């Protein structure tokens, strides 16, 4: 049985994201990377494979550029790569429908993804897919392993950090974990370049997207804050505390 990992390509966290006109200017993005939490999901997928699962399939949905994220996943060991090719911007339910169809096609009963993508910051995709496929859903995990046939995970739940167990089929959304992320080596990078990416359209997956229910009106930069006040030395603490009370009204 295989493990599916959902990978989204986003502007690298060190890259500038700027707005031109009333849209995010993608041409200003200097580097695209795998979304940070997805890297932890991918790392865990590789560990699950080492503990006996047959293969890791990396799936992405997005424009042409995003297939590079799959090649990066292959460089650290993903076995097969699926790119659901869509150029338009999609709403949450459209993305979930496409990715669910792709997962179904692979037959994977363990699905790993990020708890939140670095561009949307949403955290909608994992739980949504779990509901569509009717898989169990364990959110905000930092580790998943197999113990005697059941899946054991560490999750940050509403009552604290806990160790839980669950059976497949199950979807996990990943937080940053303790595990060291593996980095691609030269051989991995060479092998990855030769790997084929299976490119699919929504039609290939039997999905009719329909119209998006969400229309983006504008992107804008957050309003500039008034310039801050800077003080030298510890004697200024009294002034700052007074200002927090009188100017800011926060204490």
């Amino acid at each position, binding site marked *: 049985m295989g493990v599916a990992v959902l990978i989204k390509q986003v502007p690298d966290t060190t890259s500038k994201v700027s707005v031109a006109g009333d849209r995010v200017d993608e041409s200003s993005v200097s580097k695209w990377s795998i979304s940070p939490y997805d890297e932890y999901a991918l790392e865990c997928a590789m560990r699950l494979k080492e503990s006996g699962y047959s293969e890791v399939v990396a799936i992405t949905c997005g424009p042409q550029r995003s297939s590079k994220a799959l090649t990066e996943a292959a460089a650290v060991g993903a076995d097969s790569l699926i790119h659901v090719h869509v150029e338009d911007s999609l709403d949450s339910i459209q993305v979930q429908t496409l990715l669910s169809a792709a997962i179904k096609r692979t037959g994977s009963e363990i699905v790993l993804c990020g708890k939140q993508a670095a561009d949307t910051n949403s955290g909608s995709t994992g739980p949504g897919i779990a509901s569509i496929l009717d898989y169990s859903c364990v959110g905000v995990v930092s580790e998943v392993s197999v113990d005697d046939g059941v899946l054991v995970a560490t999750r940050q739940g509403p009552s604290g950090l806990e160790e839980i167990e669950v059976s497949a089929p*199950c979807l996990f959304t990943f937080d940053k974990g303790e595990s060291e992320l593996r980095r691609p080596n030269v051989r991995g990078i060479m092998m990855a370049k030769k790997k084929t990416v299976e490119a699919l359209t929504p039609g290939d997956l039997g999905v009719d997207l329909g119209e998006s229910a*969400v229309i983006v*009106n504008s992107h*804008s930069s957050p309003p500039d804050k008034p310039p801050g006040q800077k003080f030298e030395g510890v004697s200024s603490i009294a002034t700052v505390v007074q200002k927090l009370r009188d100017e800011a009204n*926060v204490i």
Partner: protein
Amino acid sequence: MEVIVISESNGDLLHPVTAQLVGASSSLGGNITILCPGGKGLSEAAEISGVSKVISVEGDCFQSYDSNAWSKALAPHAEGDLVLTSSSSTGRELASSIAAIRGIPVLQDATNISEGIVVSRPIYSGKVIETSSVKIPCVITLRANSYEASESSGKAEISTVNQTADVTISIRKALERAGEKIDVSEADIIISGGRGMGEPSNFSNLEEVADLLGAAVGASRAAVDTWDEIPHSMQVGQTGKTVTPSLYIAVGISGAIQHLAGMRTSKYIVAINKDPEAPIFGVADYGVVATWEEALPALKNELSALLSN
């Protein structure tokens, strides 16, 4: 418009964000029903002004958290035009699952919702604000502290429904209990320490200030990664928590872009750092160039004096 607000609980009590959700719904002019998962905070929910009905959704499935089971139990009662939850991790998960069960979109972490429905929300960790129009029915999660809470002078009708759903997650053991300390994602004031604190034991100085202010203690990733004593649950930033308190005090934190990503939308920011060139001063409303060793005792004294008045 029928609005369904799913309440957020804090242990057995109602989380204050619930009244803010009602505040946001009232501004849209909807008929508001609150769903209380597992019946938690029921009587408090019924006192929130502007609510017409409160439904306690009860069942064995609410004994421990399983987002798939909870959303299956809640969805039949969440058929409104607009379903609203908090953008906590539980709120986001329930919102997404209910939306998927209904086949409708979800927009997360709104900071403004106006008629239309037009939603504003920060994306790219607050570097960009997105404004979009969404057709109803839809699900929206609201960022805490974005709206004024509705008052508590109401008296809504309470009803109870029983719902079953299979729980598939079982808890083996609790590793770290929530609720003993104020969580950074819920706090209205946060004081965070970075690598500049030198030793994890020095965080006790931050805790003392936090106790005076009723604040939560946060940390930079460098602090979390360097010291085992500082858990990841305290981390603020790109790969930690995104917070919007009224006041964020950064101590011995340089202000790397990934840290700013998690806290730059705070209403007021104070930075204490010994390096006048530290980038954190670029986002600080009030910056103090000093070491924490000097600054924190002074801060404690000033606050004790002020707050005892």
